[in-house]
């Protein structure tokens, strides 16, 4: 059974179509990056998956109907929206008590051990913590929950690089195992590329690309080519071309690596570059 199974998922706010009927299947044990520009429908998709908003279409998460069974679902799902959602008046100690009090799968010792490694004081209120500390607190609460699905919606928004890195490191090293599934949406594509097993690009309410990272690396290639071989390279129809320090960097979709290797240096493209190629305004050689 897929962890998330959405078919024709559609959501409109008045006349604005936030989700135009997307299909999305996420198997257990995957880490899916949901990547898209502002207003693409990432948060809407995640909120539908969490049962926070009504939607049209078919959606099953862990075999449950999120809208009808949110409280049941939340016993097995964790959600971190951007860090600002912890109420400012809440004391750290009380937050741990509360989650321990309402969540059947919360391991208090684990949360306290994680907090002990930080500089967060149990008597502080969220108001007194820095943004990075609030993220650590939220992470401590979430990681102590033995959930099957973790949904992260821009979890590191507004955090500096040090906290962002340690956020994902903790997640990967201390939390993730093959039995869990993680869905993460973010702008900071480069930082999460190495942790993903799957990626979906979403734009204007539609999924424009949905692939595993293995398939992504097999399908797309980036070629660095000197001016002398540029014409030969362009003949292979790159989906994007750009210039860096006088060298041309071309992005290819489904062109054999051996052929590209004859022309120059081949490597796997970054998600960010592909993102720009697929979503950005038409540019360079893209037809």
């Amino acid at each position, binding site marked *: 059974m897929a962890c998330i199974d959405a078919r024709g998922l559609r959501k409109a706010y008045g006349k604005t179509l936030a989700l135009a009927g997307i299909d999305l299947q996420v198997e257990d044990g995957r880490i899916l990056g949901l990547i898209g520009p502002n207003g693409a429908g990432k948060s809407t998709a995640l909120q539908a998956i969490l049962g926070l908003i009504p939607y049209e279409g078919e959606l099953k998460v862990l075999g449950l109907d999120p809208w009808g069974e*949110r*409280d049941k679902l*939340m016993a097995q799902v964790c959600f971190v929206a951007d860090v600002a959602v912890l109420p*400012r*008046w809440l004391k750290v100690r009380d937050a741990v008590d509360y989650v321990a009090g309402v*969540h*059947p799968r919360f391991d208090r010792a684990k949360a306290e051990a994680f907090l002990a490694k930080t500089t967060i004081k149990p008597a502080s209120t969220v108001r007194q913590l820095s943004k990075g500390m609030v993220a650590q607190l939220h992470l401590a609460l979430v990681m102590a929950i033995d959930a099957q699905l973790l949904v992260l919606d821009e979890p590191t928004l507004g955090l500096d690089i040090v906290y962002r890195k340690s956020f994902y490191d903790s997640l990967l090293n201390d939390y993730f195992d093959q039995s869990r599934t993680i869905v993460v949406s973010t702008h900071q594509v480069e930082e999460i590329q190495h942790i993903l097993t799957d990626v979906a690009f979403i734009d204007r309410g539609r999924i424009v690309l949905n692939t595993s990272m293995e398939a992504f690396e097999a399908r797309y290639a980036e070629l660095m080519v000197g001016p002398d071989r540029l014409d030969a390279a362009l003949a292979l129809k790159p989906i994007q071309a750009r210039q860096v320090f006088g060298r041309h960097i071309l992005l290819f979709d489904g062109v054999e690596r051996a052929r590209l290797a004859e022309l120059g240096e081949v490597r796997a493209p970054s998600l960010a570059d592909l993102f720009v190629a697929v979503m950005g305004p038409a540019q360079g050689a893209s037809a």
Partner: protein
Amino acid sequence: MSDAALASASPASGAHVRPFYWSVRRELWENRAIYLAPLVVAGIVMVGFLFSLRDLPQAIRVLGTPLAPDAPMAEHRAHGLQAMAVMASQAGILAILVAALIVAIFYCLACLHNERRDRSVLFWKSLPVSDTTAVLSKAFIPLAVLPPVVVTIMVVTQLITAGLATAVVAASGLDTGILWRQLTPTPVVIVGLAYGVVMLMLWYAPIVGWLMLVSAWAKRMTFVWAVAPPLAICLFEFLAFRSHYAWTLVHSRLVDGLAAFTAGGKGKEAVSKLSDIDPMPFLTDPGFWGGLVFAAAALAACVWLRRRREPI
């Protein structure tokens, strides 16, 4: 299987989960004014009372001097004033109730609004607590937590003031019996206050429901949304039909519940003996039951709204 899966399968892991209890605790963490405001007012009443103790022996002396049947009017008046001064300390503790009611109004207007405004509703909803549990735990504060808190604070204040008054009168070598004749017997006070506060909150339950509904619905200016529509309806009715049924309804909802503190619920004399406490006027009033039905409907609407409304 991982260790985690084993842990979740152990019976102990889910045994101590009490979403409703912790949701109520959560409300009290956020809204400490629920008990702090009545306590502060009780403190003020107490300090004011300490100052009034200075004049108490004089009042007892006046009250202890029997009046001649043909005494001048002025003396009768002085007598009455002194008796009132002695009882004023009892009336003062009603200020504690007023403080609690004001706190309750602001609590109800904020409880489903603030969590949307600071987006923390996304955090609360990320936990396995149903919207019904969340809304009921919020309604529980004014309807079930506040009454015993207020009654306790009022009774303790009453006991302390009565005890101090007795000590001062006795220390002045005067007859404490004169004081006690002016004061309502303590058991009657306790039962009367407890009954009055509980009945009043039941009478006000539809107001709690209405305020919470506004809190769950309005995007801003909750107070205006709570007050303006009922007033607009009253005004419209008066202008269009020259009648005032709506106003009568609003007025009776605001005021009639206070009769629970009076003898027989008749709204005239204060409760002075246990047999004065009579719930029948309330229990036979269709308005009482109608109000409870309205409150239940409003809370159901709050649950519906909390599911759907998004952070502001």
